[in-house]
């Protein structure tokens, strides 16, 4: 399949353009009013977390505020209707860079990991969108860093998650901050709480982390995308995380890891090539990277960069008149037009006052075509904002089967777009649930048949740019009226293949039939 994908890129003439989804900008009316504020020590960050804490199945939205207070917004959108949120005082914290939802204590109530410029917080969900700080109760050492990346996994057999936190520069270094990257931390469980964090040395100013099973070994590794602006002697990283063993860095000598040095800002993973292995999109400044494993059978983490060939370098603005190089932040693969092919959204925005990079830097919405290349449609879809974007989520906010988009902007209010056009295809949304530890099955894999091929989706907590989501997993189905899929649960057990109807929400549990769910 991999060979076929690469060959197709070289040989296939341009095919019909994909359906361009239509979005309506509902920023002014939706009630999301938070801006990401602050000066130098908030030039990165600006995350958004989406998760259901009210129990109605619709994702709430938590927005970081930087130097301004963060806020949780209750989702009151009618199904398929205009987006509507109500601001709460539930999580009003200062110095918040980003957040990820995670049911840490596996009580079925969503918790939240909040990354800050200062002490990080784990917030225990109490139900009804109420939270309390649980650092002390859970033994979580929040430290005092500039935390800018996060990923979580339940290591094999563990009842409590392992959290990886990425940290940026030593913010007290004014004259010579370069080379002052502070240690990333690995918070492993110890009983029903966290042990003291292990430093992931060397650390190179991480702006994104992701646990991912890049070689389908059954044991995820930790990918770390680092900002070369601040490290010395650094590069992109990946860590072995074998159960019970100390984390161990992939190296060129021992593992065939290839050095790559970029302004790493965000990681998105998906099986774009449908070969059963994850492909990785890494945001940066100017050209972005799209990594495909060169030789899965060879077992080495050696990736080819196909960004150029597939048309997703996204290296400079495509509209707005500013043609200086772009600055990419949150990347996310999702099928925004429901045509059965994954597309790519990238939140864009100047770091701040960098005149050699685009000041007017529109977000990208890159639609995948039949031959595996992508075409830009951000302007035609109506999401080419010139706001100074940072974190984002592409998620169905009103449960109509069409993905919506929320983006956090630096210094201006977060923006939200509701997908409002005619669907480009059918869809299916599933949610994984299991008893015991790891209720949301972080680390599971959903395999979905796409014709003769199988597309593999990892259920992850992490990646992007300090932004994450737990909830419905959306699949576009094109013209199909059903989808055939199965789940490989975090313990490695593969569920049966099952056929599920299009235009439905399904809750999947190990060893059980799918349970249809209806919103509203």
């Amino acid at each position, binding site marked *: 399949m991999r060979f076929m994908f690469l060959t197709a890129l070289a040989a296939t003439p341009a095919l019909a353009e994909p359906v361009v989804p239509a979005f309506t900008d509902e920023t002014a009316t939706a009630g999301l009013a938070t801006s990401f504020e602050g000066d130098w020590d908030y030039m990165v960050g600006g995350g958004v977390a989406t998760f259901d804490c009210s129990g109605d199945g619709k994702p709430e939205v938590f927005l970081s505020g930087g130097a301004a207070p963060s806020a949780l917004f209750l989702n009151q959108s009618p199904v398929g209707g205009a987006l509507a949120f109500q601001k709460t005082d539930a999580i009003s914290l200062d110095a918040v860079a980003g957040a990820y939802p995670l049911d840490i204590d596996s009580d079925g109530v969503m918790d939240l990991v909040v990354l800050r410029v200062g002490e990080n917080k784990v917030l225990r969900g109490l139900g009804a969108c109420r939270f309390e700080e649980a650092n002390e109760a859970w033994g979580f050492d929040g430290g005092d860093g500039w935390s800018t990346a996060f990923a979580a996994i339940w290591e094999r057999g563990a009842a409590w998650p392992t959290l990886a936190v990425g940290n940026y520069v030593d913010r007290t270094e004014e004259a010579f901050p370069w080379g002052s990257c502070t240690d990333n931390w690995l918070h492993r469980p110890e009983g029903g709480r966290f042990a003291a964090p292990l430093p992931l040395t060397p650390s190179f100013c991480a702006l994104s982390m992701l646990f991912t099973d890049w070689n389908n070994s059954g044991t995820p590794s930790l990918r770390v995308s680092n900002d070369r602006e601040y490290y010395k002697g650094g590069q992109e990283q990946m860590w072995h995380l074998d159960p019970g063993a100390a984390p161990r860095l992939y190296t060129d000598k021992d593992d065939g890891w290839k050095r790559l040095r970029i302004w790493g800002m965000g990681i998105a993973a998906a099986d774009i090539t449908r070969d059963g292995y994850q492909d990785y999109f890494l945001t940066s400044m100017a050209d972005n990277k799209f990594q495909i494993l060169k030789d899965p059978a060879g077992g080495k983490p050696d990736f080819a960069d196909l960004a150029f060939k597939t048309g997703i370098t996204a290296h400079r603005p495509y509209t707005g008149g500013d043609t200086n*190089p772009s600055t990419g932040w949150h990347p996310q693969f999702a099928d925004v037009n429901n045509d059965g092919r994954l597309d790519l959204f990238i939140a864009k925005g100047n770091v*701040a006052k960098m005149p050699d990079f685009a000041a007017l830097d529109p977000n990208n919405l890159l639609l995948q075509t039949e031959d595996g290349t992508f075409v830009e449609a951000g302007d035609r879809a109506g999401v080419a904002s010139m706001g100074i974007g940072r974190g984002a989520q592409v998620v169905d906010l009103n449960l109509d089967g069409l993905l919506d988009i929320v983006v956090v902007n630096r210094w201006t209010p977060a923006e939200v777009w509701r997908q409002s056009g005619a669907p480009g295809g059918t869809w299916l949304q599933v949610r994984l649930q299991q008893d015991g530890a790891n209720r949301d099955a972080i680390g599971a894999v959903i395999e979905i048949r796409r014709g003769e091929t199988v597309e593999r989706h990892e259920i992850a907590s992490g990646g992007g740019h300090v932004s994450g989501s737990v909830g419905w997993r959306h699949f576009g189905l094109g013209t199909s009226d059903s989808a055939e899929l199965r789940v490989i649960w975090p313990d490695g057990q593969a569920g049966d293949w099952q056929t599920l109807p299009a235009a439905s929400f399904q809750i999947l549990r190990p060893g059980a039939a799918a349970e249809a769910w209806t919103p509203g």
Partner: protein
Amino acid sequence: MKLDRRQILALPMLAFARPAWAADRAVLERDTVTTWYKLILELVRHTATYTPPVASRAFGYIGVAAHEALATGNKGLMSLAGQLNGLTPVPARTEGAHDEACVLHAVINATTQGLFANTGPTGQRALVAIEKRLGMAASDGIAQDVVDRSVAHGQAVAAHILAWAATDGGAVIDNMGFPREYTPGTNPQDWVPTSLVRQQQAPLLPGWGEVRPFAMPTGTSCSIPAPPAYSEDPTSAFYAAGLEVHDTVKNLTDEQRLIARFWSDDPMLSPTPPGHWISIALQIADRDALPADRITEVLAKVGIAMADGFIACWAAKFEFNLLRPITYIKRVIDPKWEPLLNTPPFPEYPSGHSTQSAAAAEVLTGFFGETFAFDDATGEPEGLPVRSFTSFAQAAEEAGISRLYGGIHYRFGVEEGLTQGRCVGAFAANLKTRV
């Protein structure tokens, strides 16, 4: 004037023989220069437009500015006005006492602020921090009127130098130096893009050979002969050169691999090749406690030599527009071959690192002699070892051959680059900086 090693080692003793206050001021003056330059090396790395040619230009202007500011108050120093293309005399000092540390701080600060106005928020924050720190240190204990007069003079000299710099044709860098449109040549020997980076589908700074040189009369004053004729015939000289790169990379020793990495000096990941030689000069200045006027003299002439080196080299690169080894080798010898280093996005011939290293070495040899041994720890923060050299020429030759080891240059590109660099460096070395 040439300082030999014995004289240099005696300088700290001379400083101790002076009154304590004067010795303290001498240390302060040196620290002012070297600390600013250490920040400038970081700014070069972290400012997006600062590719090697652009960096060399900045080193030229900052060095000249510092030297000229001191020369207005030191009868032993000679101005470069009238010696450098287009440089007119800088403003004279006003009546009254001046403090050299304050003058140095002000002139380097203002020149750096001008040349790095486009650095990012972290660079701007660092500039403010260093301006404050060094400004306070320089002015501590100095009468306010002296401080004010000294700062005003430094700023006036900086303004003069920046106005001169603005007219050289290299002041405006668009799209990080890459043309927005470019059509590659169609001859088999023509350079073609070698990377998968979209921005690098056009060559870096194709017009840089037309930038006004500092000391060299014109960009083509040190022209070089044409490279061997392109051929795919296995018996040809060109094929042999390509095969040598192929075989060398395939059979690298650990030492050769280290040498390639040591001199890699990648833009935006290091202080660049000219920054590497500035770093060498700063290490010598620290080690041998050189006085500030000697440091600025050295930095000015090294900066001039490297800036002229890049102009001469770029003029030749775009005259011959020769394809890189990776293109030739994949086309003719081995489609699966890969170089050790990333191939830079511009034509091969000659090697820029070779030209500018030889130019820098020519100047440094003029100052310190042909057998001046030194250690180079430039790469230590990146995890690279310290390397020791018996002469500047040896270091330049190693920098040159490192490009063959890295698989990005043919041997003839290295050798002609070194030859060109020695020619360019002679113009800078012959500048009169002392009476």
